[in-house]
Each structure stands twice: as structure tokens, then as C-alpha cells.
């Protein structure tokens, strides 16, 4: 059974570790020197993400699960995995709440 979350609230941090994230076709993002800009082509709304957020977004959309992205980031930034998992979850919640990502709970896009 597919569980695609396109809006509304996300399940708990633990529940989405195996989920995958995708950017819907009406959303694009481009990386600038000091921030990543996410643009909703349907609404024309721009959203700024700092470089760390941009890196998270890159990992999340590179066919990595949320948990896998958190592990890689923990490695890159030398932070405890549990701490990074919380940050990634909050980031996903923020983007999801703004309709900028879709989350697939069964781990497939």
C-alpha cells in the first residue's frame, strides 16, 4: 500500500526515517552561493533555505531515505545521529507544511 503525504502534518520523527522525499513537479529549487531558493511555480512563492538546509534537500531528493540522509549528514557535520535526525525531521515538517515536498512513507517514490 502506498502512503504518499502531500499535505497535512507528518507522522513522528521515528516513523518517517524509512520514508523518501520528493519535490513535486510544480516546485523547483536552485542553489545560490549563500542560500538555496525553493520556488513554488503554481503560487509564485519563493522560500529561502540556508546552505545546511540546501544540503539536506539535496540528500533527501537523491533517492536517500530520511534516515539515510540524517546518517550521512551526521557523518559530514560530525554531529550525533539522533540530533541530526531531529533537525532533518523539523526541516521536512517545515517544507512539507509549505507544500514544497511530498513524503512517501513506504520508502518508494
Amino acid at each position, binding site marked *: 500500500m502506498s502512503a504518499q503525504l502531500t499535505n497535512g502534518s507528518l507522522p513522528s520523527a521515528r516513523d518517517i526515517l524509512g520514508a523518501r522525499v520528493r519535490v513535486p513537479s*510544480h516546485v*523547483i529549487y*536552485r*542553489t*545560490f*552561493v*549563500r*542560500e538555496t*531558493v525553493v*520556488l513554488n*511555480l*503554481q503560487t*509564485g512563492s*519563493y522560500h*529561502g533555505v540556508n546552505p545546511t538546509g540546501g544540503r539536506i534537500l539535496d540528500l533527501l531528493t537523491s533517492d536517500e531515505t530520511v534516515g539515510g540522509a540524517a546518517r550521512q549528514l551526521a557523518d559530514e557535520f560530525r554531529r550525533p545521529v539522533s540530533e541530526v535526525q531531529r533537525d532533518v525531521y523539523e526541516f521536512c515538517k517545515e517544507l512539507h507544511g509549505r507544500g514544497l515536498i511530498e513524503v512517501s512513507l513506504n520508502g518508494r517514490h
Partner: protein
Amino acid sequence: MAVTEFSPSRLHDRPESAMWRGRAFGLTLESEAPFPGLAHCRDSTGRVTSWRDDDARLIDEAWKVSDGDVVVDLRHTDGRVFMRIDRRADEGYRIWAPYYGRHLVSADGRSIRSALPNVSPWRWQRLFFAQTLPLASALQGLEVFHASAVAVGGRVAAFVGSSGTGKTSIAAHLVALGATFVTDDVLAIEAAGATVVAHPGPARLSIDDSELRRIPEGQRSRLGVPVGRSDKLMIEPEPTTAPLPLAGLYFLKRPASDVSRVTIKEAEATATRSLLGSGFLAYLDTPERLRNHLDVCSAIAERTRLYDVLIPKGARAREVAATTLAHADGFVHHAG
């Protein structure tokens, strides 16, 4: 036996070779007669827009005032229309300003039909060059920015800033100091491969008399000849005739309280947003245009230099121009 394909419906069209062609904002404008203010070109390569001067009655029959969605409605303080732009899905745009004419721009930007008022060309051209042609350019896939620009050493330096920061005055002083005119107020940009290309605008520059007087007499002739006057003097400068690589953007910050003289430094973190916010024709918000705008801004940020120009209160455009020219001369040659 020679076989030639022809279309009966086009037998009475004007032969293509008889069309006059001029270029601005990355478009080749084809018209039946020379179009003042545009650099003449022989071929019609690239993006082509046909222009026709039509009877006002035909324009009004094709598009009634009540038709379409109003996307821009600027009024004088007494309520009279200053400029209005309407959009009809799939058909395009109607631009209208009393005493400046009305123009129908097709949705793909390849055709413009105009009903012109009976005034000097330079007057109706103000609307045409400020709104109509930039719209056609954007509809044909170029990105248009609210900026003035000059060329130094074969590369373009552009000036971005809110109204009143002196974009035009600085460009005028730079031309007087030896730079080449590229455009006044609207700049068409294209991200082509590894290069960001700036396309010249029409040969028109509007300048305040007071600002013109600040240009030393011996340098004024470099700006070109006056072609008309309203609230400002309209001049026809000699523009660059070909697209040139964009070397950098200068964000004009006026007044800057933390400097005592004009200071240029690497742009702050907010430059991304300043760049995104400097797009022209905000009403053109289709997904294609939004995507192109973000892509071109991304290319500009990646492949050119972004600088802040901090201008203290009271600093003259001349001083800004001289400081910028020295700076641009350095980084253009370094980048080139």
C-alpha cells in the same frame, strides 16, 4: 522540372526581404519601415517579432477594453488611467497608455500590433520600449531585469536598484566617461551555456537636465543626440550592436549611512533576494517565466560578480560613475 512549394494565402504578403529589421532586448523586430531607436540588422536570426502599425479601430475590434484580466492598472492621482495591461489566456496582452498608444502582444511574443497616437515617434516609443518590447522579449524566453547597463572592455556591467537610486544617471556618466551604452532601465539577459549574455536595448536614454549639466561639456557629445523632451531629455546614444557577456551586477544602495564616500564591496548575503527582486514585468508570472527567472538569476549568481555600491547621502552620480568605472575596469579585465 523545378517544383516550388507555395501557399496561396501568402501570395499577397510582403516579401520577407523587403522587411526592415532592427534589434533590441535580444529580439529581431521586423517591420515594414525603419523603426527609430533600433539598431538596424540585415538578418533575422534568433528570436523574431513582427511589428505592424495598425488602425486603432482594428486594434479595438480585436480586443475590446472590457476583455481580458487586468494585470496592471496604474492611475494618475485624479483617477485617470496612466497605463493599463490586460491579459487574455492564449491570446496575449494588451498594453494601453493614453497618448502613448495601444499594443497587442501575442502570447508567444512573436507578433505586436500597435495603434499609435499622432505624436512624435520618440513619445510613443517610450511606452513601446519600456513595456511592449520587453514583454515580447520575456515571452520569447529572455529574462528582463529592471536595470541599466554599460559595456567596459567588451563586457557588461549592470546597475540594479530601486527607483531614484540613480541607475540611469550613473550609466549616462559612465558613457560620458568612455563606457559604451547598453541599455537604460530594462536589461534582457540570457543564460547561454557557460556565459550569461546581456542584450543591448534600444538607443534611448532619458536623463534629467540637471544631471546632464553635471556632465562636462566636452563629454556630452558621447551621449548622443537629443531626440525629444518631456519631463526628461531623451537622448539617442550609440549602443553596442551585439550581445555581450555580463561581467557583473552592481546593487545601488542609497543612502548608505555607514560610509563617507562611494564604496564598492562584495555583495551581502541578501544579494540573492535583491537579484530575484530585480526582475521586470512582475505580472508575467507563468510557471515558465518563473522557472526561467530563477534559472537566469542562478546563472548570474554563479557566473558573474555581484557587488554592493554604498552611496552616502549627497553623493553625485558622477562620483558613483567614476568609482564604478575604476572598479569595473579592474574586474572586467581580470575576469576577461
